């Protein structure tokens, strides 16, 4: 018989939960005074151990400190002392839930397997305060608490503690791995799958979500062989993580499901969602494509795919995605709004208007969406030169948000453009009045948002149309001072001088415009605003100049 203790024997190391429990009990019975015990178990197992010990140690007073939220200041010592102050005759204290104080830390995520990064032990950055507290205060623990402290912790937390509170851990009377029985695991799984409560999990406090995430983690660790169970658990955990805003970890969980169950379209679409939140748009689109290839009827997936494509400026593909989405469900106004906006960006105005109308036909619940629909539809109509209808749309938008600079600006533009279009049919005075109505709106917009240079530019153009050249120049100057790099504003200013016959200033400003963009030279060649200046030799030279910079 070999007594070579230094050898590791596989059969020696199978954990017998009953034996481990008896060891714990022996330790608790025999220790006089201070003692430190670590039990490695799941949240469910922990409950059972507490009950058994309370029954088996009838002659000792057993209490439980249940931490159901992270300890904000990390002062574990104080929490324990406060607990014992209220129950001074305690001889054995179980401490549950310390792991909740660890969950937010990077190293936890690596230890839980939620991150693909490795752990490097020698960085002490970002060690959770609870571990520092335990380690530094350990003498105080010994001197203040003449009782047995039993920490119930899941595996990752024990490992974390071993590394980051090594002096504290060194004082242990023992560490006892207690795994859950199969029966317990099955029972908890069944409970979990029947739990309809998750739909509400957005409203839970974060600590409740964290507790649940950890409970599922322990089930995951006990279900290694059963793929269906594992996928269910990963997926549920992923959802909780996603709801908690932890998309990186959630995507890791979903990815695992897709590897085990490649035909699980829900996993693919959830993965796409997480990747979308992480701004990994191309990856998200790939995931969405997988989901759709399994089940082409997924409305949200088509929709999100469209949004992702739109953000990548792949507008044509986005339009196709939005089309598919609305074929599946035609009654979601937000979807029509997204579609309309996308079409607007690629100048398919007729279709955009149709989309916006569809949005309006369905019951829009919130004012913000309604406002956007009217605003953007108005813009599309304006681009189509359907001035009356555009103005009507802008009015609707303004009735919801009367102080919107965009709506005011755009309505002003519509009024001015309408006036210009009808100029030949009305008297000069009426024309000027119509344009002035537009200018009024520009002014109102600028009084709300004075740095909107587009509006200054629009105002300048309008003023130019009714002959108020000096004021127009002022407006263009304002625009230029806010946005000096825009060649249009400078060119417009040059046009003003041109229409006044002020060749000298026209040439100077036009030169600046050409410096900003050479096409100004071409534009000036045929622009009637410069007719009064064409005789000027400098002007001729400027137009003739092919870039030798005279």
């Amino acid at each position, binding site marked *: 018989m070999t*007594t070579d203790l230094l050898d590791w024997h596989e059969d020696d190391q199978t954990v017998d939960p009953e034996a481990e429990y008896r*060891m714990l009990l022996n330790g608790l019975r025999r220790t006089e005074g201070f003692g430190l015990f670590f039990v490695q178990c799941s949240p469910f197992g922990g409950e059972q151990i507490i009950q058994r010990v309370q029954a088996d140690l009838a002659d000792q007073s057993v209490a439980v400190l249940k931490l159901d939220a992270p300890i904000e200041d990390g002062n574990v010592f104080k929490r324990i002392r406060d607990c014992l102050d209220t129950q001074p005759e305690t001889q054995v204290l179980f401490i549950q839930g310390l792991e909740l104080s660890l969950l937010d830390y990077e190293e936890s995520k690596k230890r839980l397997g939620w991150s693909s990064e490795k752990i490097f032990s020698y960085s002490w950055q970002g060690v959770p305060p609870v571990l520092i*507290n335990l380690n530094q205060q350990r003498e105080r623990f010994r001197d203040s608490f003449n009782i047995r402290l039993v920490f119930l912790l899941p595996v990752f937390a024990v490992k974390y503690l071993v590394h980051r509170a*090594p002096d504290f851990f*060194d004082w242990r009377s023992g560490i006892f791995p207690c795994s859950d029985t199969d029966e317990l695991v099955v029972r908890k799984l069944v409970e979990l799958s029947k739990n309809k409560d998750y739909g509400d999990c957005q409203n839970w406090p974060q600590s409740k979500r964290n507790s649940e995430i950890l409970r599922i983690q322990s089930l995951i660790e006990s279900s290694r062989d059963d793929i269906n169970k594992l996928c269910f658990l990963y997926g549920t955990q992923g959802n909780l993580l996603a709801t908690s805003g932890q998309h990186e970890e959630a995507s890791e969980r979903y990815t695992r499901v897709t590897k085990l169950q490649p035909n699980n379209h829900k996993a693919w679409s959830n993965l796409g969602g997480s990747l979308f939140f992480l701004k990994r748009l191309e990856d998200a689109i790939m995931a969405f494509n997988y989901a759709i290839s399994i089940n082409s009827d997924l409305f949200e997936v088509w929709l999100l795919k469209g949004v992702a494509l739109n953000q990548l400026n792949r507008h044509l593909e986005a339009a196709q995605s939005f089309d598919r989405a609305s074929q599946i469900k035609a009654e979601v106004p937000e979807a029509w709004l997204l579609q309309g906006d996308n079409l607007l960006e690629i100048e398919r105005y007729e279709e955009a208007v149709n989309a916006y109308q569809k949005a309006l036909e369905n019951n829009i619940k919130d004012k913000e969406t309604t406002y956007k629909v009217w605003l953007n539809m108005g813009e599309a109509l304006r681009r189509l030169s359907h001035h009356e209808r555009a103005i009507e749309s802008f009015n609707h938008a303004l009735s919801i948000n009367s102080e919107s600079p965009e709506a005011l600006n755009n309505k002003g533009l519509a009024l001015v453009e309408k006036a210009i279009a009808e100029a030949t049919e009305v008297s000069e005075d009426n024309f000027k009045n119509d344009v002035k109505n537009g200018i009024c709106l520009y002014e109102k917009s600028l009084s709300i948002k004075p740095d909107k240079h587009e509006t200054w530019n629009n105002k300048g153009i309008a003023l130019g149309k009714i002959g108020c050249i000096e004021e127009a120049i002022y407006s263009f100057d304002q625009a230029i001072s806010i946005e000096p790099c825009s060649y249009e504003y400078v060119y417009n200013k040059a046009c003003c001088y041109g229409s006044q016959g002020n060749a000298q200033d026209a040439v100077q400003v036009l030169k600046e415009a050409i410096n900003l963009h050479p096409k100004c030279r071409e534009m000036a060649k045929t622009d009637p605003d410069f007719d009064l200046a064409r005789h000027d030799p400098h002007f001729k030279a400027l137009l003739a100049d092919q870039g030798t910079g005279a």
Partner: protein
Amino acid sequence: MADVITQIYNAVDPFRPLEPGDPAYVHCEAERGDANVLLDLGPEILRSNRYTSQLYAGHRGAGKSTELLRLKADLEAKGCFVVYFAAVGDDGDIDAQDVQYTDILLACTRHLLEKLQGADPAPLVSWFKDRGKALHELGQTQVVMESLDVKMLASQFAEMTASIRTVPSQRRKIRDLVNPHTVTLVTALNQFITDAKTKLPGGKTQLVVIADNLDRIVPIHDDYGRNSHDEIFLDRCDQLKGLDCHVIYTVPISMVYSNRANDLKEVYGNPELLPMVMVQTPEGEIHPPGVARMQEVLTRRIQPYLPEVQLGRDIFENEAVVTQLCLASGGHVRELLLLMKEALNRTESLPIPTMAVRRRSPPPATLSPHSGKGPVGGAGASSQTRAIQNDEPHRDLLFRRCLMEYRYFDDEGTLQCWYDAHPLIKAIPEFKQAVADWQAP
């Protein structure tokens, strides 16, 4: 009347350093390369004309605190007044994650105030009052440091240091108030100390301060790659050394091997190091004297309850088991006690069945699950070469006691240092694989 197992179980507590003169103490100097704190640190103090500052390092649980308490008793017997305190964690002093040198100075101050009651604290009083006033104005403390009573000052100051501990935002503010004034604090302290030395009780002539547990300071790297250990022990050494008395500080073992080890030597001289008890030779043979020492550690603790005890007969099934147990501990005293406790937990009656000793809990993840080049690889390589590379991963392994240091005098009387992986780690499969990988050409 508790039964014997319970008594023994409680006698092998891993968390109390032995008081000096405790019969359970075993002299292990010979197996620790003659590391004898009385001879290494003591004479420096007794013979020197200047004030000394020395460093003491060693693995966690090797027995440093026990040795320092022995030194304290010895120095006291030789005419010194010794102020010993655990600087980190003891009763409200430092527990901040980012311990700075000011925290250590303040802790020293507090303990000196407490222990040197006869001295005139006037210089410190005015220092505290000024700081207290500033803090009070900031709303940081309710306490107004008006009193002239040293005890009051000490406790008020303790309150101040306690609040350094708890709230990080307060910590910063208190630091900002104290840091610029540490030089004046040292000056005030020295005035206090000078006066105290004339009034030492019992006719003592020397004052010695021992700050234990500084090895537990977490090494924090700031954004410039500088280390809090560096800052405390090196960059600010003028302050730590500036006290007009002898000081001994414990220092983390990883620092003794760091890339600033030479600087450390220049400032403080060679740090004293407490290695493990050598139970095996570098060649892998059993080293009987070391094993015998470890056995004695157990025997002496058990003797009060079983006066005629023989380990191999009464406690364990045979001698071989005892030897193996001592080897498994790697010469680490606390580890031995832990193994003992675990075995006792699996036992209902003596002698402890061998199965109970074999079935020990796995070394709780002292190694991360890497292989090859990672920590396991490093430990593997070191176990074969008996040497360590002086880099971060190896220092970390030393810090975590995966690698341990041993010392002995060879036949020519030269001191040899060598390193080996923790024996319990050597047994696990990943380790064996790493060694195989390392040996493969």
